């Protein structure tokens, strides 16, 4: 598993960790029930403070992505994949909404946007 931290980024380090782990859960790279590294070993490997990794895990737990079993460790939660998908869908819808309103102001046509989408989708 890769977690890449930038010290010069404006995004707080705990948030960088949180987002990256979240993405791995959503993309199923981290599977349900899989154990995450302990707070202390992750802190050591990333060369950051224990409190920083702890905040990241706490936020992930609050949002239901992971579960902590006291004395055992932190695991990827059995969160409903449908629910995660729904959340992602909402996010995508929001972003498309912004794109469409910008397009309307600048008189960019629906077809142009469709073309753009096709190209972007084929890129990877």
């Amino acid at each position, binding site marked *: 598993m890769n977690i890449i931290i930038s010290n010069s980024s404006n995004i707080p380090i705990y948030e960088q960790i949180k987002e990256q782990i979240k993405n791995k859960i959503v993309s199923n790279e981290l599977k349900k029930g899989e154990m995450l590294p302990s707070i202390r070993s992750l802190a050591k490997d990333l*060369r950051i403070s224990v409190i920083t990794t702890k905040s990241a895990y706490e936020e992930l737990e609050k949002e239901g992505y992971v579960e902590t079993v006291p004395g055992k460790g932190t695991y990827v939660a059995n969160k409903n994949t449908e629910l995660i998908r729904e959340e992602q869908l909402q996010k995508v819808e929001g972003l498309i909404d912004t794109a469409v309103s910008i397009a309307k102001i600048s008189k960019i046509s629906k077809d142009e946007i469709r073309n753009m989408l096709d190209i972007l989708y084929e890129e990877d």
Partner: protein
Amino acid sequence: MENVIEIKNLCKKYSGFELKDINLNVPKGMIMGLIGENGAGKTTTIKAILNVINSYDGQIKVFGKDSKIYEKQIKEEIGVVLDDSFLSEYLTPCDINKIMKKLYKNWDEKLYFRYIEEFKLPKDKISKEYSSGMKMKLKIATAISHNPKLLILDEPTAGLDPIARNEILDIFQDFIQDEEHSILVSSHITSDLEHIADYITFINNGEIVLTKTRDELLENYGIVKCSKEEFERIDKKDYIKCRKNRYEYDILVENKEDFKIKYDIQIIDKPSIEDIMVIYVKGEK
């Protein structure tokens, strides 16, 4: 959270220097970095915790016990690395082992030699012939081989090159893999603590200026860069200190996002601990 060190209202007067009402807690399982310029009071505070200075006012508890009354018992469970070496440089790691075995009930010979090997220290060479980095590693190995729960170090990275400093920080993070273990470490090389310390306490002129988690300090604090005209419309309560230069004003603020919303000033840098320290000491209000 449980504290391994609790200092309440510590005062100590010397001629020309004074510790003023120091209050400090070191939570269990964490690394606390004590920063400040030379002569700010870091070493005196550490010496008070170890009960090696004569009489002071206030109370210090280590592992919840009064540090004066339970001194002996407490010292069995702490490892100490002070600036001035307490071991002769004419001793080899093997000699040190023989001495420490007699001093500590819990001395763990196997663990000690495991560290000596891990730190790549020649066993039969006197430490006078070691590099500065190796000397420090030997001191740390000696300090942690009786399985202490708390490690107290005064300026362990001073005078070491970046690679050696990095290795020392690795040792610290290894040490706290056990959540019962805590570290209090002083340094004026703030970048060392910037990454791995959980809490930062800044001591200046015998007084504690701030104690914060590393994240609060480095993710929330900001340095606003602005003109004299812009500075003049900033409310005094919205900043900590300001350093006035000829061409720009550097203003330290506690929460850069809040500040950005209130004032329309765009240039706000993410500070390093060193930046914060310098503006605190050199800035005005």
